[in-house]
């Protein structure tokens, strides 16, 4: 039996060449700055930088050090806890607010257009500018007003060790949920008006309509945001670098801040890099299955639309 020669049509060849030219630069970029960077990060985790010879040597000691730090060093454990608490609060409270406010906007309640603009506003303002204004406001203006109105003499909320983390969480919630609100309201605007009308005729209004009709329809968007949020638990800086620069107190730092700040402080000194890379890999090993477990759970328990 003769072999059939597979010939590519001339037009398909042209399309293929054009297609490859279009994706060449972004794919090469991805290979270098995603695959290359992560591969280099894995290699870095197995290296030790010798200051005397100014070169790297191979070692597995970084993982042992990282593991010991993550399991028994108080600062690292505190950082772990801060990262989790920061995510839980911003996701938990932020998502709830975003969903309810987006439902408000979706229903075109009075002032929803104006509130939409106000919710979006913090996301277009520079974080460093907003943090600076917020810090001075919470440390100077609010204590001053409380003193004038109620004769309370309290320290600034960010200066005070006891209220500092709470004030930072409050900032991240207030300034972070606005864009999510818009995304949810955009997703809700895709719901067919007939579905809403039918639910209303069946007596589902207010919270009933939200739980049984609207939320199930935007559930895929909810899953997307939750999964992306879980993926960022250990990379989220929580604007700490904007608040404190390189000298954030240890009782508020998150891993996202720790990695960025340590790299900044290291400058051209490469000694710190291997331990950072190995710590990052250890956290990746925790975060990756967590993301897929959360995604699986949400898809399992979620409404079937």
């Amino acid at each position, binding site marked *: 039996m003769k072999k059939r020669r597979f010939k590519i049509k001339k037009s398909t060849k042209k399309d293929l060449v054009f*297609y490859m030219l279009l*994706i060449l630069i*972004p*794919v090469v*970029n991805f290979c270098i*700055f995603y695959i290359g*960077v*992560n591969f280099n*990060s894995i290699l870095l985790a197995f290296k030790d930088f010798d200051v005397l010879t100014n070169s790297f040597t191979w070692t597995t000691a970084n993982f042992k050090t990282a593991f010991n730090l993550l399991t028994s060093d108080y600062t690292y454990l505190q950082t772990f806890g801060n990262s989790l608490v920061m995510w839980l609060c911003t996701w938990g409270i932020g998502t709830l*607010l975003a969903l309810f*406010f987006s*439902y*408000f906007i979706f229903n*075109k*309640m009075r*002032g929803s257009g*104006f509130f*939409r*603009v*106000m*919710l*979006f506003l913090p996301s*277009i*303002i*520079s*974080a*460093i*500018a*907003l943090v600076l*204004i917020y810090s*001075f*406001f919470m440390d100077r*203006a609010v204590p001053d007003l409380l003193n004038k109105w109620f004769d309370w003499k309290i320290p600034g909320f960010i200066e005070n060790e006891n209220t500092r983390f709470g004030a930072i969480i409050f900032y991240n919630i*207030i300034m972070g949920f606005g864009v999510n609100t818009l*995304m949810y309201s*955009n*997703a809700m605007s895709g719901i067919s008006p007939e579905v809403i009308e039918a639910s209303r005729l069946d007596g589902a*209004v*207010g919270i009933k309509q939200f739980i049984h009709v609207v939320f199930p329809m935007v559930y*895929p968007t909810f899953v997307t945001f939750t999964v*992306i949020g*879980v*993926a960022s*638990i*250990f*990379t989220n800086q929580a604007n700490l670098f*904007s608040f404190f*620069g*390189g000298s954030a107190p240890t009782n508020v730092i998150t891993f996202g801040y720790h*990695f960025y700040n340590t790299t*900044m402080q290291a400058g051209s000194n*490469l000694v710190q*890099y291997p331990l950072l*890379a190995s710590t990052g*890999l250890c*956290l*990746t090993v925790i975060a*990756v299955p967590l*993301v897929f477990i959360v995604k699986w759970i949400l*898809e399992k328990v979620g409404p079937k639309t």
Partner: protein
Amino acid sequence: MKKRKVKSSTKVRFTPLTAIMLVLLVLYTVFIIWLLVWALINSFKTQAEFRINISGLPKNWVWNYSFIYENFFIRVSSAEGEELIGMLELYGNSLLYSIGCAFVTTFFPCITAYACARFPFRFGKVIYTIVIVTMILPLVGTIPSELQIAKGLGLYDSIWGIWIMKCSFQGMYYLVFYNFFKNIPKDYTEAAKVDGASNLRILFKIMFPLVRNLFLTVMLIKFVEFWNEYQVALLYLPHHPTVGYGLFWLANRSENNGLNTVPMKLAASVMTLLPVLILFIFTHKKLMGNVSIGGIKG
């Protein structure tokens, strides 16, 4: 016979839930406006007045903005010696950085999405999967590695180097462009091909005009993002500081006592956020447009 107007009952009932939401939204709005107005008012005070009058209007209005514009410098040390970078250069660096990065982070996802959505090659599915997976895959601690590679490739400390580093297809907007191109009927391209149009002609004469509004909206969103961002500049562009970098420097490292006061820092904050706020006033419909993200499945 009189026409009867049929009123559809689209008015939503005011329930306890909506009442609570309205109160919370009002409180939120008051807080945000109060924050910004307080910063603006206090940017016109001297430090001495600020100490005794934190919440009220200034008794003597002081124009701190020109003092900042004339006296603020960032010291940047290099092999040639110390360089002083002023406000004009900061704004120039910010514009170059923001416009360039906004363009490449919009253009490359757009053309990649076009290629994957409109051509039947299987590699398009691989790229789509990569985008989804990289969005949810948490890779921690890669900043040192990326910095090392950037230095090794000679991309460190140059604005064009940052542009090259950002020429990727990854990110949410790839999905937005992909859905857009996927929904364009095939008739457009088939008719053009029958008329003898090449792929390049189809891309420039048909597809780009169709995607123009979305492209500009995404680029605008990206421009705002890069204008406000300062940490990449701090790490990768030590000798090309941006406005955000300048404000960070003023807030944390400034040595000049004349600038190291609260009213000066608030004035500098207002100078940083004002260009974007003005842009927002004219383009808020586009910025807040219907760019939505669906779900991740599989």
